[in-house]
């Protein structure tokens, strides 16, 4: 460890990383390059030199700014929800209780329903006339209005979408945290016991530190993942009412496939990537430092 490092030692890390890096470069570099080039191409065709016009337009686009803000809110709330539910369940599932397997399976199920299906189902369930949620609420609270509007209501639309996203996405964080919990050696808990630590102190001083890397990674990955999520939002609200629930990924999708303005869509996507990259810098540095 303190001895001088051989060439082998200094470079063996690269060998482990090599296959994955190769794949990423081979498959994604060309498309990334094309996207970059597209974002600098004037609309309507190449061959007329490069331009920063699309980026200029992007900075003056009111819809884009609003969408960025929506996306931040969407991602932030989803992360909070995923972490809260995921951590709570992971802790509860980490016990050797009877029925544990059943609970673990049930907790996993929302993740197994594809985005598109979840979006369609929630949209229909929240429909004022044909939806099943309103009648259900009325069973418990008979004075609840019969045709209550969820997704048409400007105040409730976004929370509804976020809630659906939390439902759909918490199992990933839960599974990751559960695995992280399992890796914490028992001796650490036993040692804390012996030192007279109660449950809360054990949690703060053994569990959380042990989980810290995994929590960081879960947050980083989930953040990137939620930025990309669009099928759920698209099917649930289509970005509405108005532009209240429009997120970056749905906007890029629309701009590309519906408006046919590939160049502008590319510029938007590049901007989104840059922002996302900046947001993930803290994670990258922290995780990179951990050994």
């Amino acid at each position, binding site marked *: 460890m303190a001895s001088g490092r051989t060439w082998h030692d200094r470079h063996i*890390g690269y060998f482990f*990383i090599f296959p994955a890096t190769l794949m990423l470069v081979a498959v*994604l570099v060309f498309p990334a390059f*094309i996207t970059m080039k597209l974002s600098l191409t004037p609309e309507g065709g190449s061959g007329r030199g490069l331009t920063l016009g699309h980026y200029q337009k992007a900075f003056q686009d009111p819809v884009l700014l609003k969408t960025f803000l929506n996306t931040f809110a969407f991602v932030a709330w989803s992360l909070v929800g995923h972490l809260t539910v995921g951590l709570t369940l992971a802790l509860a599932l980490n016990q050797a209780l009877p029925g544990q397997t059943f609970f673990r399976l049930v907790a996993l199920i929302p993740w197994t329903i594809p985005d598109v299906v979840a979006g369609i189902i929630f949209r229909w369930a929240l429909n004022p006339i044909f939806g099943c949620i309103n009648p259900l609420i009325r069973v418990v609270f008979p004075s609840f209005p019969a045709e209550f509007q969820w997704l048409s209501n400007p105040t409730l639309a976004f929370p509804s979408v976020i809630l659906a996203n939390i439902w759909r996405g918490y199992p990933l964080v839960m599974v990751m945290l559960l695995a992280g919990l399992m890796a914490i*050696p028992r001796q650490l808990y036993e040692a804390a016991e012996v030192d007279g630590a109660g449950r809360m102190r054990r949690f703060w001083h053994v569990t959380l530190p042990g989980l810290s890397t995994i929590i960081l990674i879960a947050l980083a990955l989930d953040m990137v993942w939620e930025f990309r999520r669009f099928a759920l939002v698209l099917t649930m609200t289509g970005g509405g009412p108005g532009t209240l629930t429009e997120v970056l990924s749905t906007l890029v999708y629309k701009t590309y496939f519906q408006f046919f303005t590939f160049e502008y869509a590319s510029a938007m996507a590049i901007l989104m990537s840059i922002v996302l*990259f900046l947001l993930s810098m803290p994670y990258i540095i922290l995780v990179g430092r951990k050994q």
Partner: protein
Amino acid sequence: MNPSVPGSTKREQWLEALISYALLGLSVIFALLPVAWILSTSLKTEAEALSLPIHWIPQRPTLGAYVEMWTLKPFGTYFLNSILVSGVTALISTVLGALAGYGFSRFSFRGKTSLLAFFLATQMISGVLVIGPYFQILAAVELYNTLTGLIIAYVTICLPFAAWMSKGYFDSIPKEMDEAGLVDGASRFQIFYRIVMPIAVPGTVSTLLFGFLLAWQDLLWALCLISTDEKRTVTLGVAFTVGEFIIKWPMLTAASLIGSLPTIILYLFLQRFYVEGLARGAVKG
């Protein structure tokens, strides 16, 4: 892990169990409420699925949708395709991701943080923009409308996540284990798969599940890449129940539920390794 830690009183354990069950009970309701509706709809006829007033319990339950999905549409083929694609994706991305994660975890080398950043950055470009150029590549090597082309795409999307996740799990395994192996004369690679991987099993389970689900549930790539029925995946089959004029609700819900089963079965199977990994961790050190 608290079940039989010496020192905690019976009362403490009992209280913990109670709280846990309460939380788990709530989680069951939270997780299963939408699923209950999905199940209920899948047991209705198309007419009843849309009728008013809403009934959570089908008035005239029928397994029609469950039968139709295999006969009217070749969901059997779709299943085989999905299982193949998702399984291979999960395996390859987990293996390559674990290798990379191990490299990131155990070694320091120049550019490590940049490479970590690069891995994550590859996932930040919207899939929408990558599809067109990616398909140009595929068409050039005649992999268009093939499951292989799909698998390559999915593996590439999963890899960075698999690598990051693996790094996290490896980080929590003390390096002393590796050192012990080195002292015994094992090569780095042998240490990787004989010593470290077995302990990191719970982490591997998460990575496998993630890869499997990502490939299983993807719609956009499969939609653009596959144009013939015999290559279609289950998620595509489900998406196609939404037509221009008709949404076949019972088949949509039935197929989604059946489509969840392989992942559940996979998790059930992989679960066993949780316990083993745990025990091993407790025994060592």
